[in-house]
């Protein structure tokens, strides 16, 4: 039954060009802006400006100023990439329960013998898989773009590989489960989307602190972060299934 729900969700997603476009637009910006900026910096920025950037981020003196800036972008920008797997599933998952309610398809769905677990899993996989695929394609393009702009093999390094292959799926689950939980309690899918999207704010703060040179996050942080998110995922999935009570969904959502 989970496969039936999943196939239907993916079919609906394929036929929603606006939603697909909105899912593609953020990764496009996240990839193209730093790569283009770096390409320009490496080729055209005054050496003095590059040196001052290197001083702010404390890059090793041995490397050239251009390479130091490229390394800075490569390492600090991972936080931005981690926003993608949280944010993208929210665009889909916020529609999961609230959207069904808004389209009045929730009651016919709940009147079938399909289990709560199948509905939640089917909808979750349909939100997480496209989001992860987009994140991974964007990561490949970003790494290739940075390497091409600098003419050196900078990315992916170990932290990036861990971030995209391990942390991204965990964060995608987190974003999805948050959206399902919020969506099952809020009547308007747009309100659910906005509320769930606030979960990216801590990552945005991390990014800003890193770019401001106030914080430098290393592998140890990302390991601990992954462990914390895994625990949060388990709790949120359990909560999502508990909140998915047929009677509650049909009557107690105001």
């Amino acid at each position: 039954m989970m496969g039936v729900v999943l196939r239907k969700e993916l079919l609906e997603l394929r036929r929603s060009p606006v939603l697909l476009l909105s899912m593609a637009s953020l990764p496009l910006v996240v990839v193209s802006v730093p790569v283009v900026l770096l390409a320009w910096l490496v080729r055209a920025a005054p050496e003095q400006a590059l040196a001052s950037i290197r001083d702010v981020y404390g890059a090793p003196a041995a490397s050239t100023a251009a390479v130091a800036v490229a390394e800075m972008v490569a390492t600090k920008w991972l936080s931005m990439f981690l926003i993608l797997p949280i944010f993208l599933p929210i665009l889909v998952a916020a529609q999961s329960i609230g959207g069904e309610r808004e389209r009045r398809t929730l009651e016919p769905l709940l009147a079938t013998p399909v289990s709560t677990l199948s509905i939640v899993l089917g909808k979750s996989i349909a939100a997480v898989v496209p989001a992860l695929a987009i994140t991974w394609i964007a990561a490949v393009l970003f790494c290739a773009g940075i390497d091409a702009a600098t003419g050196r093999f900078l990315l992916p390094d170990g932290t990036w590989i861990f971030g995209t292959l391990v942390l991204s799926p965990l964060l995608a689950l987190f974003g999805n489960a948050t959206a399902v939980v919020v969506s099952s309690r809020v009547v308007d899918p747009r309100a659910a989307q906005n509320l769930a999207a606030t979960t990216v704010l801590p990552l945005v703060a991390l990014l800003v602190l890193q770019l401001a040179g106030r914080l430098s996050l290393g592998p140890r942080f990302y390991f601990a972060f992954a462990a914390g998110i895994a625990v949060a995922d388990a709790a949120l999935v359990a909560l999502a299934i508990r909140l998915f009570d047929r009677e509650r969904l049909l009557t107690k959502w105001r």
Partner: protein
Amino acid sequence: MAAIEAHGLGKSFGGRSACRDVSFAVERGEVFGFLGPNGAGKTTTLRMLAGLFAPDTGTARVAGCEIGPGRPGGPQLRGKVGLLTESPGFYDRLTARENLVYFARLQGAREPERKSDALLERFALRDRAGSPFAELSRGMKQKLAIARALVHDPEVILLDEPTVGLDPEATREVRNLVADLAATEATIVLCTHHLEEVERLCSRAAFIAGRLVAVHEIRGGNLLRIELAAPFQPDAVRPLCHSLRISGTTLVIEPRAEVADIVAALVHSGARIEAVSPHQDRLEDAWLDLLAEARAA
């Protein structure tokens, strides 16, 4: 064994009673009406029978599945019931056929594609099977929703307001569909506030106004209407009647004896008769009488 047996079903939301003391039985193959004003608890009762809610009080057996407080019936019950919800509730971007096949699969229907195609054909939707649901007319949407309620060959069919919001032509089409269903000896509970639908399609109807007020048998024309010159207590003729209803100076009688004997008994006991005529029992009259009684109580 009855297809549905309900005993004292009741449900409250946030301390406010939606319905209470709902007891009735529906025989297999019977078309049973649920009548009541908006907010009377009809939909809540239907949702309990469909396994969406557990009742707060009372118990019911639907298609052999038990429901009661804390026991909403589960997947087994939901697989045996076909529910037509108040709103069609399909996915706009999916075609009519994709929608129907999707729900057929969720319902565990055997050969979901073949079954869906057969229903699209039967409901004259074959030509629009490939159209997105959003592009169908209101009547087509409602027919598709009825097809969904039947796609898994349910033992009990619960129809919640099947003609609400439809234009006259679509209303007639949907009513004919329900009549066709009734002719197949399906067990149907028809929830509506259109009395003529119940009169045409049902053998009995339950009147609900927060609680179950009465179960009324829909009769043919075997009734007698006697107009009197003045109000009168016709105790002398009661033994001659299966039932007797008094409304002012009008008696509506289901005779047990010959009409001449009833008239003679009335005249003999002092009543002055102005007219005697056959009577078609109008559900509307019974409904308004029962509603007035319920409000007075």
